């Protein structure tokens, strides 16, 4: 490890950590260490392994290999509470407050003050007040229900909850993503105080400016590997971005057609707005085109696709399909012959498949109207269609009447895609379709996507893997906080441009950094 031998010994040390999910290596042979009196930033693209690393440290996930030492002693956590008792405390991106409990109950949810199993409510309230004051929320009544607080305040209550657990190692995973600039300053002030008191703080964020403001040390991860650890001031932004992207070309993509963007658009979106998650999104796409949606996770890409598929209520704006104004109130309407939209949802296991049902039933569920005899399903036509799909997509299946849950992840995803081939959809909305899938199947899917586009389909493609955006897309829209931040076409589509735009760094900075 490059950072051994500092002023004091590493406090939390992880050696040779590996973790894989199915065929996907989330972490490979990772050595990592952080010290007390230090704020340590962990950087990397989506899927680089940051989340898995902290989940292992916090006892949420057990590593396949490797050892962990805390203050020099080997530790092994089976559950989050075990890690917590040793002083490793997390503040996660997803809020974990129980909405209908009071703020004070939430703060002391795991270790309320009191005796013999009874909670001393008065003491709990006093201590909650003190902790709230500590995180700059003197104005919050500890007896207020958590659900009545605005999002940014809830995030600060999360921090207070973490402090109540008396942390030695405090992990913040995108914990500032819901905060306003003023709140972020308050959090930074607290973090610096905690650091000076001797805590080891792991700070995960996509916001480069924040990392420059707060971090003492940075570690960069890529593809499940620890790339480098260095003092924050030692590297420029551009060097860090470069380190996050790397130089490996891991996938092979089908060739893009010379110019696909001249056709009349089949999908026209104007000023699409939904709550505060989508802001005035306008976008067009033509048949044969693969349009990428990029950006960090959770910038409105998912909501955009769900809105187009009719799964969201209260969407404002106009959607035209083949020049006609489309009314899409539900997925059932979206898939109608008139609209011809299909969606591969984000979560295969809950949104894409009915796991207990057979492969056959999953394959035909969206297109049953095409295989009817009078009012009942014609089993012969259904069977023939299923055989055809299994062969076309090369789905490896023992018996099509087996539960779809028995297939591997890649083959399950093929089933999700295949069911939309039955409806002959002309507009495909793909929500991270290659997540958690082995490389071989990924390549098959890339080929299929290009083939469908060549046959005249219009494809909107969200992926958290920037490499795929570069490799697959004819144009890329980068979303940031629900709005289109940037559109790249042709040769502009580079991983560097995408990462820059995703992090909301102006593109001019790139050339300045490169010059400097």
């Amino acid at each position, binding site marked *: 490890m490059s950072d051994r031998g500092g002023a004091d010994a590493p406090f939390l040390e992880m050696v040779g950590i590996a973790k894989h999910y199915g065929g996907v290596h989330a972490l490979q042979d990772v050595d990592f260490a952080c010290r007390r009196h230090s704020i340590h930033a962990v950087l990397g693209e989506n899927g680089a392994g940051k989340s898995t690393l902290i989940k292992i440290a916090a006892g949420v996930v057990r590593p396949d290999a490797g050892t962990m030492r805390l203050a020099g002693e080997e530790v092994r956590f089976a559950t989050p509470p075990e890690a917590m008792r040793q002083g490793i405390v997390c503040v996660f991106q997803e809020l974990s407050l129980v909405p209908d409990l009071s703020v004070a109950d939430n703060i002391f949810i795991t270790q309320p003050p009191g005796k013999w199993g009874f909670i001393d409510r008065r003491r709990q309230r006093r201590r909650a007040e003190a902790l709230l004051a500590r995180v700059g929320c003197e104005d919050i009544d500890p007896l207020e229900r958590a659900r009545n607080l605005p999002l940014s305040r809830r995030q600060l209550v999360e921090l207070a909850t973490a402090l109540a657990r008396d942390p030695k190692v405090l992990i913040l995973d995108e914990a500032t993503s819901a905060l306003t600039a003023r709140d972020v300053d308050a959090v930074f002030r607290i973090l610096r105080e905690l650091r000076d008191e001797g805590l080891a703080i792991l700070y995960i964020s996509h916001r480069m400016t924040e990392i420059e403001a707060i971090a003492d040390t940075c570690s960069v991860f890529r593809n499940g590997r620890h790339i480098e650890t260095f003092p924050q001031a030692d590297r420029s932004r551009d060097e860090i971005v470069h380190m996050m992207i790397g130089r490996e070309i891991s996938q092979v993509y089908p060739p893009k057609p010379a110019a696909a963007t001249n056709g009349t658009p089949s999908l026209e979106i104007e000023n699409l707005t939904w709550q505060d998650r989508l802001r005035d999104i306008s976008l067009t796409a033509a048949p044969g085109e693969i349009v990428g949606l990029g950006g960090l996770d959770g910038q409105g890409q998912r909501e955009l696709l769900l809105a187009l598929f009719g799964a969201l209520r209260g969407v404002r704006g106009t959607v035209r399909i083949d020049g006609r104004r489309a009314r899409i109130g539900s997925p059932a309407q979206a898939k109608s012959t008139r609209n011809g939209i299909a969606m591969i949802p984000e979560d295969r296991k809950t949104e894409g498949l*009915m796991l207990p049902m057979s492969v056959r*039933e999953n394959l035909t*569920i*969206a297109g049953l109207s095409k295989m009817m005899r009078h009012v009942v*399903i014609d089993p012969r036509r259904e069977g023939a269609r299923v055989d055809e799909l299994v062969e076309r997509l090369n789905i490896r299946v023992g*018996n099509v009447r087996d539960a779809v849950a028995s297939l591997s992840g890649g083959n399950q995803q093929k089933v999700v895609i295949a069911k939309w081939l039955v409806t002959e959809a002309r507009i495909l909305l793909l929500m991270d379709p290659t997540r958690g899938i082995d490389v071989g199947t990924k390549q098959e899917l890339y080929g299929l996507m290009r083939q469908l586009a060549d046959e005249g389909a219009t494809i909107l493609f969200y992926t958290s893997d920037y490499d795929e955006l570069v490799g697959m897309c004819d144009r890329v829209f980068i979303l940031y906080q629900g709005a289109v931040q940037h559109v790249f076409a042709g040769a502009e589509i580079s991983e560097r441009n995408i990462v820059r735009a995703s992090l909301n760094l102006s593109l001019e900075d790139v050339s300045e950094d490169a010059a400097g």
Partner: protein
Amino acid sequence: MSGLLLHLRQNYGAVLAITIFVILFVVFLSLHPRGPSVYVMTTASNTGAALAFVAMGQTLPVLTGGLDLSIGSILALCNALASEVVNGSPERVALGVVLVLLTGLACGLINGIVVVYGRIQPIIATLASGAVYTGLALLIRPIPGGEIDDVLSEAMTYETFGVIPTSLLLIVAVVLLIWVPFKNSVLGRGVYAAGSSEVAAYMSGVRVDRSKLAAYSLAGLFAAIGGLFLGFQTFSGDALIGVPYTLNSIAAVVIGGTSLYGGIGGVIGSIFGAYILRTINGVMFFAGAPPLAQPLFEGIILLGAVALAALRVVRIRNRLEVMD
């Protein structure tokens, strides 16, 4: 794996129920003082028929991941109504039967509307609507009595061709004419899909709402057939006859291999589940068990059946999956 074996493996719940039923029935016949005869078979078939219909009805909401606690009340309402309208001239009898069946269908539809569009938990919605249906039944028939056409009743509770219990034929007819087409329709496939994963079904463009409405409506229709058949057995109506049917129908569904989580199972298993429950009663009667102990044994058997169904949960590795 051959087609038959695969089919057996995928319907192991129903196969298990059929096996248990056959064993129990053999024990029952051996204990019965008159042994196997046309009379004994017809009586056995009639005794379980009403519960079998109600259990078939209960299967559908359960397949969607819901439950119908009003099903016994619908049975009683239809039974009470039948004692008013299923009598007189043959035309009036026919009209009365249609009216009773439509009433059951309407009750089920109302349940479906409350569950689907009211977005109310099925248990709460049908608990409330069940009270309403019981109230209506009491208005129609405050005290047990009334009259049901005896020609039709005897035709339905004796044998066809002298050997086959007519009630058995009725069950087979309902399965073939209602259940099989429904199961193979888009609506029926949607019922299974909604129970397997409502989100995935919705995201596949399945009209989940319509499937659920159909499931609850058919449950009402099956309950009406059950109520009508009870009337054929007693020639009269009783507004409070439905109470034990709700719980027993759920028990029959579970014993028949349908998952209370939805998505897995079917009415065939439920029919055998119903006959298992009734045969147990018969076995205990002829084995000389004291009548007052019967609810105790029934309860123990129910607990056992529900525990068997819950074994599925034990196999789940991720404990978060059970907590939804």
